[in-house]
């Protein structure tokens, strides 16, 4: 008793403290890595966003909100914000709907399941930069197979990637092609997790048609999966870059300029690191706000079993 009175802690308290210390010790490698690879770089980007730093110069000056003011007035930035929004608004819903459709079709037919799964997943595994040349050819206005096909039906094919009026739609098609497979795999995983007896119960309760079963069982049970797929799809769409860089270089006349491409241009081609950092901060803020909104809105409607 005397010893304990000196240390001032009860045995339980001491044990709790020791446990907390051990926990901290065990978590520290992860914490250090997080600090070095996530938190510090983010802080660095935020700080650089307030400077006029240009790659290659030894010194820089703090310029306050000058970069952000320039962003607000920049035609390029507004254009690229708009293009990214259009691209995301097309690619996210379409690739989710088609991904779900494909997953349902594959799930309902046991024959050739793994074959179709692989086929639809191929675009995810393929190297987009290499596939870009193929898409360039498919979309080619005069020698491309796609427009040749349209011509068979008497439809004059658009100049997919060449014209500023259609380039963002052309890129969207590629984006959808690329993400269907990924969404499908996630939905397939979600589907296998639905207990079979729920379908039997629904049938007993009078849900006879496939549509009813989908509406009453599959869709609500897929809620958490759908939320996850939506989140990932939005992030991936906002992050579109490779297709733009390899196929259109943001052109013609900024018609396919998207956020990441603009950041790349400013930071790595024009070497204006300070300005590009400010843009990155805005980009991160947009992503965070989107995620928060999505979770707030969708989380309430999702049924976790």
């Amino acid at each position, binding site marked *: 008793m005397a010893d304990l009175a000196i240390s001032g802690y009860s045995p339980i308290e001491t044990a709790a403290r020791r446990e907390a210390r051990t926990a901290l010790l065990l978590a520290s490698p992860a914490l250090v890595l997080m600090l070095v690879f996530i938190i510090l770089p983010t802080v660095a980007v935020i700080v650089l966003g307030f400077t006029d730093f*240009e*790659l*290659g*110069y*030894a010194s820089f000056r703090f310029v306050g909100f000058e970069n952000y003011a320039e962003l607000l007035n920049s035609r390029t930035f507004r254009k690229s914000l708009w293009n990214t929004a259009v691209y995301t608004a097309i690619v996210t819903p379409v690739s989710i709907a088609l991904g779900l459709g494909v997953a349902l079709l594959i799930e309902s037919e046991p024959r050739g399941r793994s074959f179709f799964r692989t086929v639809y997943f191929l675009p995810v595994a393929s190297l987009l930069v290499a596939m870009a*040349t193929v898409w*360039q*050819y498919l*979309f*080619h*206005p*005069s*020698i491309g197979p796609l427009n040749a096909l349209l011509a068979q039906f008497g439809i004059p094919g658009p*100049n997919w*990637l*060449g*014209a*500023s009026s259609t380039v963002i739609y052309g890129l969207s098609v590629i984006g959808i092609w690329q993400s269907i497979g990924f969404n499908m795999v996630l939905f397939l995983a979600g589907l296998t997790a639905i207990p079979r007896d729920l379908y039997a119960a629904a049938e007993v309760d009078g849900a006879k048609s496939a549509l009813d079963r989908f509406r009453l069982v599959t869709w609500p049970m897929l809620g958490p999966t759908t939320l996850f797929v939506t989140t990932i799809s939005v992030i991936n769409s906002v992050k579109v870059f490779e297709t733009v860089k390899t*196929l*259109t*270089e943001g*052109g*013609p*006349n*900024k018609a396919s300029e998207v956020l990441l491409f603009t950041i790349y*241009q400013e930071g*790595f*081609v*024009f*070497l*204006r690191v300070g300005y590009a950092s400010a843009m990155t901060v805005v980009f991160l803020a947009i992503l965070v706000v989107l995620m928060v909104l999505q979770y707030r809105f969708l989380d309430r409607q999702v049924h976790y079993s």
Partner: protein
Amino acid sequence: MKHIKKALAAAAMSMVLSMPAHAETTLTVHYPMPGFFKDVMDTISKKFMEENPDIKIQFANPSATYEEGIQTIMRQAGTAEMPDVTFIGLNRLRMLNERDIPVDLTPLVAAEGDMAAKGFSDNILKLAQVKGKQVGLAFATSNPIMYYNADLVRKAGGNPDVPPATWDEVIALGGKIKALGDGNEGIDFRWQGDDWMFSGLLFGAGGKMLSDDETKVAFNGPEGQKAVEVLDRMVKQGGLPVLTKQAGEQAFTAGKVGFAFQTTGALRNTIKNVGDKFDLRTAHIPLIDPVNGRLPTGGNAVVILTKDADRQAAAWKFAKFAAGPYGASVVVPGTGYVPNNELAAKSPDYLGNFYKENPLFRAGLEQMPLMQPWYAFPGSNGVKVTQAIVENLSRIVEQTATPKEALDDAAAEVKGLLPRS
């Protein structure tokens, strides 16, 4: 522990023993675009080390593109990782020089005395100068040429043995090829990406980008207006479609385009891609002003970065070797670049016979006297300026603006991007 100590001692001993008796200088060389230059660099450095046994060349990790290369250099400048020698795009030399990174080669050139005798004429030296300072030595250089599909020209009633020499003739023939139908296009002009091909039109009209003191925009003068009008007429009458860069290349190599205007550096690849699909020919690019017209130079220059005197001397030897006749004789046949060295072009020891046997490569060679530096804009927006020009050109190609409007807008935008001083 004992074992480790022993091993360390043994390693240290063997290192001492393997040290060569004579002082050896090791140069670290960095270059971009390994897909393009790896074999060339390996061949050149091997030959160089044979001739200079006291200098050892080691390569730093090559960068995938020119842009990545210059970023790497700027990050490493002044640190121990900085390579001794690098290769920089000719239009980025100014940017590097403004940051005071490259070594001034002017005194080295002066000390050499007989640079012209080694094939480095004044004209060639100027390609890698920034405001009179010798920043590098041009290593691989190119100029814009005309590629044409002789089969289509014949079909459209032209004579492929007498290629069109003026833009009027090109546009007229291009229009006829377009009129053949069947998805044929008249012209592909590489206006996308950067201002290089626009420079081809502008310099070809005898114009220039900025006034001599670099304070005022000059490309919207009469020469520039002629340049954009030619582009506009190519679209309206010559059958120039709106294509991305790759789509244009694909259409030409598929045999669906009459004339393609782009760098001679793409020649080897074009020959390979065309195969025997059609009769590929090359010719001079027309000049709007045949008397005063000039052409821009693309490509890269070897640049010395090391501040160490011994290594600088070794690096200068390497730079002269790489940019010299032997280097050129390795670079030219593999790519289509023109020899950046006059000795290499004429001497049968190097490329004299090559040009006799490969007539397609001659167009670029014959245009060499017309080459002038690819203009790089001053200030921190130097690269962004070129973007503003390209964007306004796309308005002409898409026919959403008249050539005059587009040129005036480009001039106004560029004016806003120039340094205010």
